[in-house]
């Protein structure tokens, strides 16, 4: 097997590869936790040629660097100096990412026991430890640092277990991250390593730190860059997995193509689009590049152009039409999700802020035509954000959108992308599908953001049978919904807020304000709605 020399790093790695053995005390098949649908080679390769002793030294140095910075940040009161618009959005990131790291940790424990290729198992083992390191770093730097060290409004950094579990935006992320652990072991890695880590994490852990630093949050920035230094190795693990299965059989290539189409869209709705939403909506002081420009550079050029494009010689390809849809959604989607977040602010656990003239100028400069599409909407959001103004933006928004606003049964995104009133009707699909749990012939209405999610549903409908958020809370009073979601602060009154400038004043909204509206929350679609021309959708 070995053709390399015996000295130096390469020689040492090859010597370790040759220590592989076949156990005689147990049958080989009994050492495998669960089989994969893919054919596996006997050996693979780690491009980093990493050994455990090097891994430990490297990670120790990274932790020394990070926690040294954290100590200094505590001493100079860094948590008090964070621009609050960004600081509040960290409450969202800090609720979503640590559980995702935990899911990834479990994935790689499973991968080690399910993919018996020694070189890959070594990389998966290190990655399993990385993911737990990331969980600990994020809890320290994003949650505990702010709770313990005088961030102006620490409520929300302790809300991660519940918000991850069933919140209207938490559902988006959790449903995507469950794909880390609920598929074939190799399919999981196509999704997590090849698309999640290689395509998306540059935006999450490199571009977002850029915005964090610009908005006074150096702890977030350094934590992100340190995490991403592990992701660099995870990208190599993903590449090692890919080349191992591509070489093993032609049948693998067919399986890979199916997984690539699924993983590309699920990555986009779980990571790329939500990250761009946080990047644009969390920034008070703006970066030089827009989320769209970063996505074009990091994902279109550096992932699809210099990586996925080179897989076409094996017949592996993301459909052109899907990439074109991603591009269109990335142009308007972050702003649409920003409007959605402002509209459903009582359902969320962080404080938001209406956009100002500087924001309008930035958006129009980076996204020409933006003001025409979003300007009036943001004026309405601003006018309805003050407590006691007589209305609530949630009700105003529902009045405008009606039942066109549904949640996708696959990705849980609102069905108003790429823009609530321009183009969304060409993408969303409201259709009847066979019910899987009832009697033969029974159908149910299922809502999708796009045909891509409908295709994912049709591939494995049994995965998506749980009632969605709107069906679960059909006809509930809005205040009761907030109580059920545990969105009321410990004082028993205060809730999420649509403004930053009311902190500590009597102008903060309370649950009593919401109860006073007394309107049931009713968004479920009926059969008549499917053909209603006022509820336009592509399936019509």
């Amino acid at each position, binding site marked *: 097997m070995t*053709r390399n020399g015996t*000295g130096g790093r390469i020689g040492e790695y090859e010597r370790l590869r040759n220590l592989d053995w076949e156990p005689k005390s147990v049958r080989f098949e009994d050492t495998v936790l669960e089989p994969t649908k893919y054919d596996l080679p006997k050996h693979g390769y780690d491009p980093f040629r990493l050994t455990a002793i090097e891994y430990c030294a*490297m990670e120790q140095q990274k932790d020394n660097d990070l926690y040294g910075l954290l100590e200094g940040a505590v001493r100079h009161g860094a948590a008090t100096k964070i621009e609050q618009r960004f600081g509040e959005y960290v409450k969202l990131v800090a609720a979503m990412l640590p559980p995702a790291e935990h899911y990834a940790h479990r994935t790689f424990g499973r991968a080690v026991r399910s993919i018996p290729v020694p070189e890959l198992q070594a990389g998966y083992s290190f990655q399993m430890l990385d993911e737990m390191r990331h969980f600990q770093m994020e809890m320290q730097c994003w949650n505990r640092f702010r709770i313990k060290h005088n961030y102006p409004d620490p409520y929300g950094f302790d809300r991660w277990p519940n918000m991850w579990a069933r919140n209207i935006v938490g559902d988006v992320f959790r449903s995507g991250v469950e794909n880390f652990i609920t598929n074939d072991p190799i399919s999981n890695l196509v999704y997590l390593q090849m698309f999640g880590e290689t395509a998306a994490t540059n935006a999450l852990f490199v571009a977002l730190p*850029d915005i*964090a630093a610009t908005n006074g949050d150096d702890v977030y920035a350094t934590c992100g860059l340190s995490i991403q230094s592990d992701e660099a*190795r995870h990208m190599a693990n993903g590449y090692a997995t890919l*080349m191992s299965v591509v070489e093993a059989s032609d049948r693998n290539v067919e399986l890979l193509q199916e997984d690539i189409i699924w993983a590309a869209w699920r990555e986009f709705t779980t990571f790329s689009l939500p990250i761009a939403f946080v990047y644009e909506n969390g920034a008070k002081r703006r970066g030089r590049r827009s989320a769209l420009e970063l996505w074009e550079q990091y994902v279109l050029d550096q992932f699809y152009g210099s990586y996925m494009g080179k897989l076409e010689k094996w017949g592996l390809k993301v459909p052109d039409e899907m990439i*074109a849809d991603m591009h269109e959604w990335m142009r308007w989607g972050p702003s649409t999700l920003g409007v959605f977040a402002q509209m459903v602010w009582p359902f969320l656990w962080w404080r938001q802020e209406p956009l100002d003239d500087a924001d309008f100028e930035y958006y129009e400069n980076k996204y020409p035509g933006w003001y025409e599409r979003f300007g009036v909407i943001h004026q309405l959001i601003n006018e309805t954000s003050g407590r006691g103004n007589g209305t609530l933006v949630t009700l105003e928004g529902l009045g405008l959108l009606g039942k066109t606003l549904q949640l996708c049964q696959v990705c849980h995104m609102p069905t108003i992308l790429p823009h609530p009133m321009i183009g969304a009707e060409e993408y969303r699909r409201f259709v009847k599908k066979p019910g899987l749990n009832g009697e033969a012939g029974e159908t149910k209405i299922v809502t999708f953001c796009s045909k891509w999610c409908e295709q994912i549903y049709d591939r494995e409908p049994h995965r998506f049978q749980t009632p969605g958020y709107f069906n679960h809370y059909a006809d509930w009073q809005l205040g009761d919904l907030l109580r059920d979601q545990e969105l009321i602060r410990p004082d028993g009154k205060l809730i999420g807020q649509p403004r930053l400038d009311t902190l500590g004043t009597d102008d903060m909204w309370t649950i009593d304000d919401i109860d006073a509206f007394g309107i049931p929350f009713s968004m479920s679609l009926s059969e008549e709605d499917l053909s209603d021309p006022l509820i336009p959708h592509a399936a019509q």
Partner: protein
Amino acid sequence: MTADVKDSNWVGFKLIDGADMGDIVDLILDDNPAAKAELMGGGYWELDAEDELVVDLEKISDLLERPFDEKDFLVYVSSYYGRVSVEDGAIRLLSDMLMVADYEREAVR
């Protein structure tokens, strides 16, 4: 390739900035004359080149007057794109797709 995606042979690192990183980037640019580098606001360098980018670790060690090997460099590699090969005394990024047999050769190129 599509209207949205152009075939690319570019490769690159994103390197965490620090006390020595500016000097290290200068050295890498000397060794890779066609490469380009930019320090970004978040405290990291974008270092890109077409086809290939080679980091000579022995030269960095001489520059810093202390041992500096692969694992020391990887502490500061926040991300990369292209195909990576960590070798004796060097780290190399290539635009070519490398397979297991390529890595098993004496040198990947």
